[in-house]
């Protein structure tokens, strides 16, 4: 089984964000692998360990931070890496990324594509699903477990509205994984050392066999006009002291002040 896993560099969401003049203040920002993509990487590695899958990751983006997260993927256990870097992708949306991923898929031909359910910077949850549409492949999103049935079938469990839906997929297929699927392993020293020397196949759009026009034909369909700092919740009140007294007081306020009881 040949697996393609997508990994995206995202801003570390645990940091404080400041918005100034409609933009996020970049100073002090740090970048990490998207949390859901760590789950995608872990899923691939488990399929490698248990089913001899061949693992490749792809990241679209440039700069040192992208290389850093690719090295992290290597250190966790992924064998091959592709990095797509091209100035024409500035301001790309999910549709453009999906189009690029389609080209990457077609160049390598894989049995399974595993993407994160959503990227922590966009919180969109679209790219993997759109990729499946572009490729005409079956797709299950929000996957929390994968079981290999045979060479051409897997069972994917997804969290749906009515419970856990178990879907049998004919490969090739695309799945997007939720954080509930596994606990991503931490890279070990040996893996980190080896990861430093592993080659990354860096390509621009031309090397990938496509063009700016082809990728731009699908997007961007929307544009972020500005970022806005969310309204802070009106700061509440904290009650400390005798449990019985403060609890009675709060229940009273829920009834008289906010009238929700």
């Amino acid at each position, binding site marked *: 089984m040949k697996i393609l896993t997508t990994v995206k560099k995202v801003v570390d969401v645990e940091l404080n964000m400041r918005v100034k003049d409609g933009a996020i203040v970049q100073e002090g920002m740090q970048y990490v692998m998207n949390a859901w993509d760590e789950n995608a990487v872990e899923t691939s590695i488990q399929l490698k360990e248990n089913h001899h899958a061949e693992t490749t990751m792809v990241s679209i983006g440039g700069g040192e931070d992208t290389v850093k997260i690719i090295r992290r993927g290597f250190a966790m256990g992924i064998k091959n890496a592709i990095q797509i870097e091209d100035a024409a992708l500035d301001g790309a949306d999910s549709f453009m990324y999906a189009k690029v991923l389609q080209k990457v898929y077609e160049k390598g031909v894989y049995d399974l594509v595993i993407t994160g359910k959503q990227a922590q910077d*966009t919180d969109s949850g679209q790219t993997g699903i759109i990729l499946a549409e572009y490729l005409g492949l079956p797709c299950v999103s929000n996957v929390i477990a994968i079981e290999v049935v045979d060479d051409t079938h897997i069972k994917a469990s997804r969290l749906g509205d009515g419970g856990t839906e178990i879907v049998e997929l004919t490969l090739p297929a695309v799945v997007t994984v939720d*954080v*509930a699927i596994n606990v991503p392993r931490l890279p070990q020293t040996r893996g980190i050392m080896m990861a430093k020397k592993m080659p990354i196949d860096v390509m621009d759009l031309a090397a990938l066999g496509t063009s700016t026009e082809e990728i731009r034909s699908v997007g961007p*369909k929307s*544009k972020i*006009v500005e970022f806005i700092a969310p309204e802070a919740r009106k700061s509440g009140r904290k009650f400390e002291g005798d449990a019985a007294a403060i609890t009675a007081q709060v*229940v009273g306020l829920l009834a008289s002040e906010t009238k929700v009881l």
Partner: protein
Amino acid sequence: MTKVLVIADIKQGVLKSSTAQLLSKAKAIGAEAAVVAMGDNIGSLVPDLAKAGSSTQYIADDPGLKLFSAGPFASCVVNAAKQFGADLIWFGFSESGKAVAPRVAAQLNAACATDITDVKLQDGGIEVIRPAITNKVLQRVAVPGGQLVAVVRAGAFEATEDVTGSENMVKLPPPAADLKAVIRQIVSEESGEIDLGDAGVVVSVGRGVRDQAGIDLVKGLADDLKAGLGSTRAMVDAGLMPHYKQVGQTGKIVAPSLYMAIGISGAIQHLAGMKGSKVILAVNKDPEAPIFNAADYGIVGDLFEVVPILRQEIKKLRG
């Protein structure tokens, strides 16, 4: 006139509140609204769908649509969108909506925005507001022209009384089954439980409750209030609570009039799922817990002591 197609949110044969909310918003922006409904044996919902504010009801009623499958559901929506000539296609917040919306967008070559909290029509274009980066910022997103497929965040739009509709059913042909993604089984949620998305009060447990006995204690409080019982991811990971009760960025988004966070630290991913609640009450023994920054009322104390008193006081209040 702008045309909005709303995807009816039907769970176990029942129309969820988001449908009327989205139809009301369509009216508020001066659009004509139609609704598309998929399922098995749903013909009886047509009058309700009309009353909720739609001028046309596109109905795909077929045994093959009994269980959710993203591919067939997407083709019904695409079909209805084309017939209606929809500019905007809105899904209520649901896991099926999140799975179907990007497919519909890709097939219609339309833009796609998930989790929107507001929408405006502007000089022939569309503008939406949506949270991003785990709710740390909001984005104002412009779609210069053409269509937009969107998933609306739970609780973002309110249903209003003044909407009217008319019955005008259009049958959609049953879509082809997705033979490459066959749904084999649904391990269902327990029936008879209060649905978190609809509950007026949600009481959620975090790791502070420790074990089943702690959960039972808090469940007593939830039952008193006829509240939905929610959970943090930490409790789900520990195997103490089922997945479908998880509130947060990767779980349910809830916006009840009262949210009680019991033994919950208040991680950003949890806050992302409940910050829209009208009133938040937190019980935590750590005065520095971040949940207190989000809470209207914070009780600093041991939940095992506080929860029984809460129950008592609420009983007293209700006589």
